[in-house]
C-alpha cells in the first residue's frame, strides 16, 4: 500500500564518485563518530495541522452561517494567517495539494502524506455544504488578502467574468505539469509563501507585495483571478445547501446591499423577460451550448500545437536539448553546463536521454491536447453561463464568487434589526423604495433552510 521507498533504488545507480581510495582506518582507542542526522520535526505537527484545519473550518462555518459575524471571521482569519501562514510557514496548503493529488492519480509510485490528502478534500466537502468557508477565514493566502483589502473597489462585471477564467486555465496548467512530475507551478509561483517564511526569492517577494498593494483596492486579486483551488471550491459551493445569505431572514429587495460586495458576488434578481425575449434568450443559450464542442475541438488543436513549448519545462526534454547541441550552450548558462556535467557523472548514454525525452514529448502531446480541450471547455461553458438566467427574486451572493467574508451582512436592514441596531427596517430604507415592506418576499425555494 505504501510506496515510500521509491527513492532508494536510485542509490544503487552508477556513480563516478564512489571510489574508496583510502580505506578508513581501524582505530585502536579513538571512537569513530556517528554521522549526525538531526531528525525532522515530529510528525505530530501533521496531526495538529489536520485538527487545526477541521476546527478552523467548523468555526468559520459557524461564524459565517450561524453567528453571521464579520468581526469573528476577521479574527479567525488573522489566527489562521498566524498559524497556517507564519507558524507553519505556508506548507502544507490546500492549493498546492492539488498538485500532489494530480501527480498521485497519474503516478502509482507517488506517496502522498495523509495530511495533504485531508487538506485537499476537507475544504471541498465543507464547500459542498456551506460554501467557501475555507476562503472566508481558513486559507492563509485568503486571510492575508482579506486583511489587506482596506479600500476595495468593485470592478466591471465583464472584467470579473473574463479574468475569472484564468484560475481554470491555471488549474489545467498546474495539473498538466504536476501529473507528469515536471514541476509544481502553484508552489513555484505562490505569491505569499515568501512572506510566511520571511525569506525567499526577491522576485516572488515583489510579486507578493504587488498583489498586496493591488489588493488594497481590488480585493483578493489572487483568490479571484488566479487561485485554482478557489475555482474548485466555487464550483462546489454552487451545490451548497446552506450557503451564506445576505439577509438573516428574507430579502425585502431594498437594494441596500447591491454595492456591498467588493468581489462582485452579489447578484440582483433579474428583471422578468417578455415571452419573445425569453424565446430569443433560449435560442441563444442553445446556440452557445452547441458551440461548446467546437470550443473544445478548437482548444485541443491549438493545445496540440503548443506541446513542444509546454514540454520545454521538462527536465529530460531540456537535458536532451542541451546534449544535442552541446557546443551551442551559452558559457554563462550555468544550469545547462552543470546539467551536462551531472549527466556525464551518471554514466548514461545520450541515446537513453534522447529516447526518454522523445517519450516525454509524446506524453506532452497528449497532455497539451487535453489542456487545450479543457481551456476550450472552460471558455465554452463560461459563455454559456453568461447567457443563462436564474429566476430569483432576492439579492443573493453568487456561490462561485462569494468567499463568505461577511461584508454584506451589515448592509442589510433585516440584519440591523436582528442585531438590535434599529427598531424596524423602515428607518434605513431610502425614500421611494418600490418594495411593499410588510409583505414578506416570496421565498425562492420552499424547502430552503437558513
Amino acid at each position, binding site marked *: 500500500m505504501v510506496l515510500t521507498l521509491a527513492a532508494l533504488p536510485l542509490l544503487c545507480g552508477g556513480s563516478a564518485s564512489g571510489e574508496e581510495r*583510502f580505506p578508513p582506518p581501524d582505530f585502536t582507542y579513538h571512537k569513530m563518530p556517528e*554521522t549526525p542526522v538531526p531528525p525532522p520535526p515530529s510528525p505530530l505537527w501533521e496531526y495538529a495541522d489536520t485538527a487545526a484545519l477541521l476546527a478552523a473550518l467548523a468555526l468559520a462555518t459557524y461564524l459565517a452561517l450561524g453567528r453571521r459575524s464579520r468581526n469573528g471571521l476577521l479574527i479567525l482569519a488573522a489566527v489562521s494567517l498566524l498559524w497556517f501562514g507564519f507558524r507553519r510557514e505556508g506548507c502544507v496548503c490546500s492549493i498546492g495539494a492539488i498538485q500532489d*493529488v494530480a501527480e498521485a492519480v497519474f503516478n502509482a509510485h507517488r506517496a502522498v502524506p495523509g495530511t495533504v490528502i485531508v487538506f485537499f478534500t476537507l475544504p471541498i466537502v465543507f464547500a459542498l455544504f456551506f460554501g467557501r468557508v475555507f476562503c472566508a477565514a481558513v486559507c492563509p493566502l485568503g486571510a492575508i488578502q482579506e486583511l489587506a483589502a482596506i479600500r476595495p473597489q468593485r470592478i466591471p462585471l465583464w472584467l470579473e467574468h473574463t479574468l475569472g477564467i484564468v484560475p481554470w486555465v491555471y488549474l489545467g496548467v498546474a495539473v498538466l505539469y504536476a501529473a507528469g512530475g515536471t514541476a509544481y507551478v502553484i508552489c513555484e509561483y505562490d505569491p505569499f509563501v515568501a512572506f510566511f517564511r520571511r525569506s525567499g526569492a526577491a522576485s516572488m517577494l515583489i510579486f507578493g507585495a504587488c498583489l498586496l498593494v493591488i489588493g488594497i483596492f481590488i480585493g483578493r486579486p489572487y483568490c479571484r483571478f488566479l487561485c485554482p483551488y478557489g475555482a474548485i471550491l466555487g464550483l462546489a459551493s454552487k451545490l451548497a445547501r446552506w450557503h451564506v445569505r445576505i439577509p438573516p431572514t428574507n430579502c425585502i429587495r431594498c437594494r441596500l446591499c447591491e454595492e456591498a460586495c467588493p468581489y462582485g458576488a452579489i447578484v440582483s434578481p433579474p428583471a422578468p423577460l417578455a415571452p419573445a425575449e425569453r424565446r430569443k434568450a433560449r435560442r441563444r443559450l442553445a446556440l452557445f451550448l452547441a458551440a461548446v464542442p467546437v470550443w473544445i475541438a478548437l482548444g485541443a488543436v491549438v493545445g496540440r500545437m503548443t506541446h513542444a513549448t509546454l514540454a520545454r519545462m521538462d527536465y529530460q526534454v531540456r537535458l536532451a536539448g542541451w546534449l544535442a547541441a552541446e557546443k551551442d550552450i551559452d558559457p554563462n548558462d550555468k544550469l545547462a553546463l552543470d546539467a551536462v556535467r551531472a549527466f556525464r557523472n*551518471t554514466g548514461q548514454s545520450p541515446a537513453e536521454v534522447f529516447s526518454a525525452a522523445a517519450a516525454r514529448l509524446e506524453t506532452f502531446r497528449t497532455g497539451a491536447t487535453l489542456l487545450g480541450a479543457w481551456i476550450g471547455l472552460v471558455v465554452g461553458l463560461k459563455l454559456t453561463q453568461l447567457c443563462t438566467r436564474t429566476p430569483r427574486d432576492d439579492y443573493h451572493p453568487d456561490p462561485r464568487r462569494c468567499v463568505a467574508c461577511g461584508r454584506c451582512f451589515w448592509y442589510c436592514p433585516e440584519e440591523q434589526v436582528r442585531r438590535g441596531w434599529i427598531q424596524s427596517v423602515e428607518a434605513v430604507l431610502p425614500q421611494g423604495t418600490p418594495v411593499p415592506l410588510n409583505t414578506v418576499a416570496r421565498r425562492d425555494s420552499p424547502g430552503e433552510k437558513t
Partner: protein
Amino acid sequence: MASPGKGVSRREILRDGLQMAALVGAGGLGGYLLGNHGQGDDMLWQIDPYKCIACGNCGTHCVLQDSAVKCVNDFSMCGYCDLCTGYFPPEPAALNTAAENQLCPTGAIVRRAVEEPYYEYTIDEDLCIACGKCVVGCAAFGNASLYLQVRHDRCVNCHQCSIAIACPSQAFVRVPGSQPYLLKQRIRPK
C-alpha cells in the same frame, strides 16, 4: 420552466443530486488516495548524494537565507587523511589550519588530530554555506565521504523545494519522514 415555482424545485432536486454525486466523488478520490498513496508521515526533501555534483546551487537557492543544506562528513567512509583534498586547496602552502590553507571559504571544517597519523574532519554546520567546494575536492582525490544533505532541523520542508527546481542533476528526491537521510554509508568489510 413553465412556472417559476416548479422550476426552482426541479433545480433543487438537481442540485441535491449533484451535491451527492460530488460528495461521493470527493470522498472517493480522497479515500482512494489515502488507501493507495497515503502514508502517515510527511514526505521530506533529500539529496541523492550519488547524483549531486555539488554545483553550489544548494547554497544559493534555498528559501532560507542560511541554506538548510549542509555538508556532512560520512565518518564511516572518511579516510582520515592528513592531506585532505576536501580540507586543503590543490597546492596548500602547509598542512595546517591557517585560513589561507583551507579550501572552505567559511572555515566550516574543523580539523582535529586523532590517532597518529589520522585526522578527523567535522563540519561546523552553523558556518557551512553548502557551496560544495569540499565535496568536489573530496570526490576528486579522496573517498567522497563529504557530501551534501538537507538538514531536517533547519529545512522548513517546502512543498516544492526551491533548490530542487534549480538542481541541474535532479538530485533532490522526496523521501518518507521515517527515512529522512540518504547516507552513502560504507559497508565495512569485516
